[in-house]
Every structure is written in C-alpha cells, then in structure tokens.
C-alpha cells in the first residue's frame, strides 16, 4: 500500500481537529462569560440596593438584627440568599473602638455564582457623628 496519501490525510485530519478544538473552546468561553457576568451584576446591584434601602429607611443604623432580617426577606428574590455583617465603631480619643457587631442571614455557602460588597456609613446624634459603621454582604444563588 502506498502510504503517502495516508500521511497527507492524517495531516489534514490533525489540522482540522485543532481548528475544531479552538472553535469549540471559543464557543464555551462566549457562553460562560455571558451568564456569569450578568448574574454577578444582578446580584451585586441587589446587594448594594438592599444596603442603601436599609440605610434610607433607618433600619441599618438601628442595628436591630430581626428588623434587618425582616426587611431583607421582604425584598430579596426567592432564588438568592444573602448574609449581612454590620460592625459599628465609636471614636474614643482618636481611636475607633468596636462597639457592636451583628449578622443577618444564613452562613455563606458555596455557589456557582457568589459575590460580595461593602459599604461604610455614619450615624448621627445632634448633628454630630455618633458612630462609624461598616456593612458587608455576601449574596449567592440558592
């Protein structure tokens, strides 16, 4: 048997295989980036919206765990879970001293899409800064 034709065919098959692999991987990347980026954006904006909503209604500054949990439950989409950790500090002699720390929501779980964010805030008393707060959230797909 003359093997010269066979070698040429094998060469073409290898080349085509490489092209197919690259195209398949490109397809995979295109599909993956769409879903992840969009899901992450939606979750992140939900988290920041909730913190802003809690702050605007005064619930965040009140630092009451059950009120915060209730407010989150009312608006959080059914397919999301969220954990919120809030810490407040007081300025005592130029040093920020932790005064209160509360959490709301379940423990953070592994999920295909999970994201986190943080926002600082102030509370006031008689037009003076009373305390400095940090609210950090984790949000993920159930």
């Amino acid at each position, binding site marked *: *048997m003359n093997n010269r034709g066979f070698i040429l065919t094998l060469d073409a098959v290898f080349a085509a295989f490489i092209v197919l692999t690259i*195209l398949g991987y490109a397809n995979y990347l295109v599909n993956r980036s769409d879903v992840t980026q969009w899901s992450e954006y939606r979750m992140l*904006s939900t988290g920041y*919206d909730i913190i802003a*909503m809690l702050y605007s209604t005064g619930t965040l500054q009140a630092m009451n765990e059950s009120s915060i949990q209730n407010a989150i439950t009312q608006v959080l989409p059914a397919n999301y879970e969220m954990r919120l950790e809030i810490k407040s500090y007081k300025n005592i002699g130029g040093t920020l001293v932790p005064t209160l720390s509360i959490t709301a929501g379940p423990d953070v779980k592994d999920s295909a899409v999970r994201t986190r964010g943080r926002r600082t805030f102030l509370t006031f008393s008689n037009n003076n800064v009373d305390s400095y707060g940090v609210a950090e959230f984790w949000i993920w797909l159930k």
Partner: protein
Amino acid sequence: MARGQLFTTDYVIGVAVFILMLASCLFVWQKTAYRIQEDFAFNGMMNTAKRASEQLVTSSGIPADWEDNAGSVRAVGLAAGDRIISPKKFAKLAAMDYNTSKYYLGVGNHDFYIKLMNSTGSLYGEAGRTPTGDFAVNVRRILVMDNRTIILDLTIWGSELSPVVLPTQ
C-alpha cells in the same frame, strides 16, 4: 490495474475524510461566528439595561428638576437621593411620549418597559411598552419611595438581537 484501483480507493477515502472534516469546520465556524454576533448584540442589550437602570435610580436627570420643565429635559432620572425615587418624576416619565422617553433614557433602537411594585408585588405604576419581542433582559432594583420599599423592574427588549444604535435628534 490493481495498483490503480488501490490508488482510487485511497483517494476516495482521503477525499471523504477531508470533506467530512472541512464540513465540520465550516459548520462550527459558522455557528461560532453567529454565536459571537449574538453575544455582541446581547451584551449591548445588557449594557443598555445596566446603564439605563443606573441612570434611573442614581441620577435625578438633566436638569435635576426636569419634571417641572418638560421642555428643557436632556436626560431623565428618577432619583431624589441615593436609590430614593421621586413619585413625581416617575409620573412625568410615565406620561411622556414613548419615543421621547426612549431617547432621553438612551436605550437606542431597543424598547423599554418599567414596572414599579411594592414589596408584596402590587403594581404601583408602569412606563414604556409592554414587552412583545423575542429578546429581553431584565434588571430588578430595590429602592425607596415615600419612605417605603419599592421594586423597580426595567426590561430592555426587542424583536431581534441587533447592536445598539443611538438615534440622532
């Protein structure tokens, strides 16, 4: 004679394998090109939804009192504070001519629909056109209006996936 036949068989098999692989390559190539084109257009739709929702909930519009000066509007926004919605601004947006509101919201050749609901899902108001197209992306924002929690659903939709084209006016 026998050597010629062997050559023909070898040739036919070689050509068949080559055509098969070439056809596969062309098929996957076309599929990938279409997918990238579709992805590009879909990304445009998602970016429009992101930008329009941010504009609505974090900006009061240009000028900031556009709801009182309909003739001077250059961009619409609903915010009376950080993620706090003004009911008056929303009422003005809902009452505005659809194509005009589309232009000032900057959604280009896409269509939009905004739904405001309270936290139990009861409808407070709507603006834009109800989606009827095959393609849509939705953004849900959680906001405050009149000291109550309110949910804004913005849908950017279209009958076909086409890149955003901003109109000139």
